[in-house]
C-alpha cells in the first residue's frame, strides 16, 4: 500500500472522529445547562407549614388503604398552587413512595396518578415535581424497575409526570450508586428515551427539564442538539474549519491522482465560506415540520 493512501485513510478517519466528537462526548459530563429561571426561583423559595393538612396526610398514609391513597391523590391535586400546602403535598409524595418495598410498580403508579390528577398547576409553578423526582430515585434500584420507569417515561400521560420521570431516572443514573451499566448501554438507552420523551412533550418547561436530563445523561453537547437539533453553533463551525484546515494541509501533500474521485478531493476544493454557508444554511423551519401537525 502506498504511503499516501495510508495518509488519506488517516486523514479521513481523523476528520470523521474530529467532527463527530464535536458534539459527541465520550461520557456524561457535568450539567452546565442553565435552569429555567422560574424553576430556580421555586427552588429557593421558602414555604410555610400547614399542620392540619400535614396531619391529615399522615393519618391517611397511616391507614394506607387503596381508598386512602386515592384521597391522598385528590388532596395533592386540590392543594396545587397553595403555598401553605407544599409540605403536605410533599408528604403525599412520601406516602406514595413508602410502598416501594412491597410494591414498587404500585408505588410508582400511585405517584404518577397524583401528579397527573393535578391538571391546574403547571409544572413550572409546581415546587413538588423536582422533589418527587429526587424521592422517586429510590424506586430505580433494580434493573427491572429502571426499565419499568423508562416505559412509563415513554407512556407518560402529562408533561409533569414525563418531566418528573426524566429528571428522576437521569438523576439516579448520574448518581451511579446501584446503577449497573455494562458497556454504557443503559445510559444510552435512557438517552434515546429522553429524545422520545422530548418529542412527546409540548410544554416548554417540560422540554427544558428533559434537556437538562439529557445533559446529565449524555452530556451537554447532546442536550444542545436535543434543544435545537438542526442548528450548528458558531463554535462548531469554527471547529469544523479548524479541522478542515488540518486536513487540507495533509491532503495537499498527497498526489492529485490519489485524491481524485474521493471525498478528499471535495474537502480540498471546498472554500471556507462555502463550508460555513453549507453548515449554516437555513432549513425551511424544520421544527415547524408537520411532525405533530395532525389536525
Amino acid at each position: 500500500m502506498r504511503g499516501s493512501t495510508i495518509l488519506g485513510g488517516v486523514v479521513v478517519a481523523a476528520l470523521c472522529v474530529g467532527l463527530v466528537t464535536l458534539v459527541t462526548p465520550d461520557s456524561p459530563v457535568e450539567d452546565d445547562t442553565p435552569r429555567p429561571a422560574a424553576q430556580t426561583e421555586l427552588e429557593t423559595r421558602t414555604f410555610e407549614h400547614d399542620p392540619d393538612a400535614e396531619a391529615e396526610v399522615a393519618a391517611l398514609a397511616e391507614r394506607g388503604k387503596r381508598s386512602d391513597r386515592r384521597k391522598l391523590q385528590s388532596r395533592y391535586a386540590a392543594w396545587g398552587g397553595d403555598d401553605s400546602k407544599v409540605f403536605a403535598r410533599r408528604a403525599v409524595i412520601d406516602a406514595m413512595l413508602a410502598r416501594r418495598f412491597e410494591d414498587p410498580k404500585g408505588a410508582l403508579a400511585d405517584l404518577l396518578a397524583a401528579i397527573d390528577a393535578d391538571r391546574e398547576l403547571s409544572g413550572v409553578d409546581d415546587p413538588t415535581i423536582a422533589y418527587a423526582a429526587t424521592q422517586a430515585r429510590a424506586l430505580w434500584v433494580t434493573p427491572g424497575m429502571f426499565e419499568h420507569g423508562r416505559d412509563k417515561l415513554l407512556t407518560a400521560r402529562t408533561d409533569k409526570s414525563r418531566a418528573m420521570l426524566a429528571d428522576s431516572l437521569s438523576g439516579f443514573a448520574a448518581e451511579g450508586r446501584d446503577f449497573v451499566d455494562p458497556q454504557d448501554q443503559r445510559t444510552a438507552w435512557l438517552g434515546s428515551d429522553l429524545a422520545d420523551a422530548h418529542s412527546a412533550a409540548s410544554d416548554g418547561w417540560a422540554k427544558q427539564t428533559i434537556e437538562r436530563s439529557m445533559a446529565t445523561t449524555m452530556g451537554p453537547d447532546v442536550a444542545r442538539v436535543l434543544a435545537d437539533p438542526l442548528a450548528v453553533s458558531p463554535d462548531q463551525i469554527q471547529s469544523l474549519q479548524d479541522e478542515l484546515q488540518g486536513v487540507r494541509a495533509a491532503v495537499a501533500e498527497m498526489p492529485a491522482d490519489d485524491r481524485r474521485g474521493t471525498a478528499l478531493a471535495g474537502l480540498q476544493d471546498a472554500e471556507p465560506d462555502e463550508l460555513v454557508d453549507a453548515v449554516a444554511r437555513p432549513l425551511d423551519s424544520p421544527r415547524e415540520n408537520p411532525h405533530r401537525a395532525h389536525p
Partner: protein
Amino acid sequence: MDPRTRRYLTVPAMFAFAAAAGLVVSAQHADAELTDLTQTPNAEGAGIAKSLEEQVGASVGDIYTPDSSAFIIARDPARAVVRGQRLFQRKFTIAQGFGPRTNDGIGDIESDASLGAGLVDSCAGCHGRPHGAAGFGGDVFTRPDSRDAPHLFGLGVQEMIGDEITAELRATRDAAIEDAQADGEAVTVDLWGKSTYYGTLTAHPDGSVDTSDVQGVNADLRVRPFFAEGSTISVREFVVGAFNAEMGLESPDSLLWDAQAGPVTTPTGMVLDGTVDSIETPPAADVFDDPDNDGVTNEIDEALVDYVEFYLTNYFTPGTHQQNARTVLGRIVFDAIGCAKCHTPNILMDVDRRVANVDTEFDPDNGVFNRLFATANLTLVVEDDGSGFPEIKTPAKDDFLVRGIYADFKRHDLGPAFWERNFDGTLTKEFMTEPLWGVGSTAPYGHDGRSINLDEVIRRHGGEAQQSANFYKSLWWFQREWVLAFLESLVLFGPPDTASNLEPGDETNPDFPQRGHGSINLGVLFNDPSDAE
C-alpha cells in the same frame, strides 16, 4: 392448594426445574432450511428431529388430546413455538405435496399474482436471513418490478397492533353513528388509532357513513398490516396463503372456512370474522380436496397451520446493537426532520397475546456471535385444571410497550419513485409504513429492493415524505451519519446463534464456538426437554 390457582411462571423457575430434573438438552442448532432426520440421518444429528407425520401428531384435537396442536399450544407452548419454527424451516418434499406452481405458472397473472411467485421448498427459503431466523431474503415476480420478502420478526406484535387500531377506529365510527342518530344531524369525527391520525369520517342520522376523507386505511377501517400494500389481516391467513402460493402446499384450514360465516378465534387469540372483514379462503375445501391435482390431499394439516401461526405470532422482536451518543443523536435528528411522523417509535399494546417477550441487545460481556445477548421473559399465567395433564399455560395478556417499531400502521404515498407497476397496467401508489426495526440488517431496501442502502432509500422518499427527505438531504453530512448510525443499530439476529438466558455461551466447551456459543434455546422450556423437536 386449589389446583386451579393461577400463578405466573418465570424463566428461571422453568429453567431451574428442567436443570434439576437433568433434562436440559444441548441447543438444537437449526440452520435456515432443514431436512428431517428420518429423511436424512447424519452423524451430526443436524436437522428436524420429528418426521412430518410426527409433527402433525393427533392433529388439532383439544386440550385433553395429547399430541394435538390444541393440547401442545395450551400445555407446552414453548414446544408449540419450536414445532412451528421447525415447520417454517422444513424442506417439503413432492411426496408431501410440495408444488406444483399455481397452474404450472401459466395463466392470467393480472388476476392471480401467485403465477409469478415460483416455488420454494421451505418458508425459510425466502425468509431465511440472517442465518437461522424467520428473516428476509427472496425476491419474487409477483409484481412486474418484483417484491422482496420482508423479515418476519415481530409479526405477531404487528397483527395485534393492527387489530387494536382497527377496534379503536371502528369504535369511533360506531359512536359517531350513535351521536348522529341521537342528534338528528351529521357528525364528523377525527379518526385516531393509537397515535396515528387516519383522517375524518362523517356519520349521518340514517346510519350511513361518508369515508371519503378517511386516510391510509380502507373504508372498512380494518388495518391490514401484512404485505407492502397492506392487504392481509392476520398471521394465519398469511401462513395459509404463503404455503399455497409460494410452495404449492394446500391447506383445508377449517378455521378460515368457519371464519367466513362468523367470528372464530385462532389458537393465538386472534378473532377473525368474515361477516365484518374480508377473510381469505383456504385453497382446499376439505381434507379430501386436491385442487392442484398432485395426488396429495390435506397437504398442510390444520394442526401445522396452528403451529406456524403460533410460532410467527410469538416470534421475537428485532434486536438492537450498540447504543451510544451517535445513535442517540441520530434518533434526535430522525425525529427533527420528521421521519418519526410516520415511523412512530413506540406503541403501547393494550393486550399482549404472546407467551413471552425476548429482548435482544448489545452485550459484549455475555454475547458471543455479534456481541448480542437475548433475555427471554415469559408472560404466562399457569393454571392446573385438575385434569392430570400438564398445567395450562396461557398468555398473561398484560399491556406491553412495543419499543422501537417505527411504524404507524397506515398507508402513505411516497411519490413516484416508490410507486409500483401492476400486471394489469395500473399503479399501486400507497404502501404501509415499513416498520424500521431490524432495518440495519435488511439491505437492499424498499418493497422492491431497489435501494441499495439506507442513505439511498431515504433519499428515494417523496410524496408525503418529500419534506422529510428534503430535510435529510439538507443536513450536514455528519448529521446524516448520525441518522444512519441510529438506523444501523436496529438489527436482526439468528436465534440459534444468539446466546441468551436460556442457553448462555460457554467458552469452556472444547469445540467452542462451533458448540457452546449459546442460543435462544426454547427447548429448555419444554415440559419434557429430552423430547427434541
